[in-house]
């Protein structure tokens, strides 16, 4: 085998690694999002208290330990396939929920009544805010599904724009908190 053939072989392996990494990076995009959300929330002062996955959706729950306010996430990568990611861009379905402990059970049922009546509506449409409750722990949540463009948060070479992600999460949580308090006082 001549030196020239060695170099051709080295070039083929190098090219293969490039294609392999491109595909691998795309399939890891949902885990990268999970990590970036955890970093953003912990930097804001929340504690991660639950982390699980059903293989497609990833679920995260955070708590502001002093006030018991909770923020929950459901994350799903919409472009795990490289072709989809290249054509449509990297997108993720992100549902963010905000919850507080409510002692007044009447207020909880009042807030939930509208949701039970409209359970046949498609609550998966982006921007639709719905209420839900976990009666065993006394929490009432409001949540909103969003479709986020991941290209704005993740650059080449695994770089993460944490400041922008943190700003977007903060704005969403503030809006949900305002909505929840309004619903409870209505």
């Amino acid at each position, binding site marked *: 085998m001549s030196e020239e053939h060695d170099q051709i*072989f080295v070039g083929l392996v*190098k090219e293969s690694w490039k294609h392999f990494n491109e595909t691998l990076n795309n399939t890891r995009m949902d*885990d990268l999002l999970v990590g970036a959300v955890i970093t953003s929330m*912990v930097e804001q002062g929340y504690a991660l208290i*639950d982390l699980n996955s059903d293989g497609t959706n990833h679920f995260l729950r955070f708590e502001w330990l002093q006030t018991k306010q909770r923020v929950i996430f459901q994350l799903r990568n919409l472009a795990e396939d490289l072709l989809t990611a290249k054509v449509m861009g990297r997108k993720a379905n992100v*549902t963010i929920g905000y919850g507080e402990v409510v002692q007044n059970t009447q207020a909880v049922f009042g807030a939930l009544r509208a949701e039970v009546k409209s359970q046949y509506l498609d609550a998966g449409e982006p921007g639709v805010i719905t209420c839900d409750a976990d009666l065993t722990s006394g929490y009432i*949540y409001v949540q909103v599904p969003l479709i986020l463009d991941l290209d704005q948060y993740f650059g080449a070479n695994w770089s993460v724009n944490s400041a922008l992600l943190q700003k977007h999460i903060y704005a969403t949580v503030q809006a949900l908190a305002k909505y929840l308090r309004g619903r409870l006082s209505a």
Partner: protein
Amino acid sequence: MLSFLSNFKHSQEMRESKDEILIGELVRAMSRLQAPAVGFYAGTGQQTIKFKPINDPVLNSVLLTVDRKTGGSALSQAVIGSKATVIIQAEVKNYLADPDDLIHMYKTDLANMFKIPMLGDTRLDHQLNSILATKKVLIDIDTYILKGEESANLTTQFLNGLLTELRQKLQPYKKG
């Protein structure tokens, strides 16, 4: 419940969430060390996270496994506290393809590694074109959580120390 709320364990107590709080602190600390999380793997009683060090001249990836040892029940929490084993595994990946270089690497570095698989308390191993250095540390979870910026600084220092040590041990094996 109408939504994805049913995916969470709602009855769990704070002592049962300490593993997750620690995971959160580890992810944040590694992010501060320019190594974002790129993989999450949950096992029975343990969590493993994969990190990608950005622009690190030696390390290709880092795996952190948190294995809770004590403190899951109220009694052991009160008597022993919350201890966990943190296993850190750093990886060097050599993108060698030239047959002459590969033969040289197998005859020297990897053959030597079989003679001395332990360097201090760090275990060295290799899988195909990856060289792995693994270290196991027992920690008190309460030292690294629930103290705000103090926790963040302590966790970052703890991980930075481990990474520096593993990087030094792996440096001789980095090719190309």
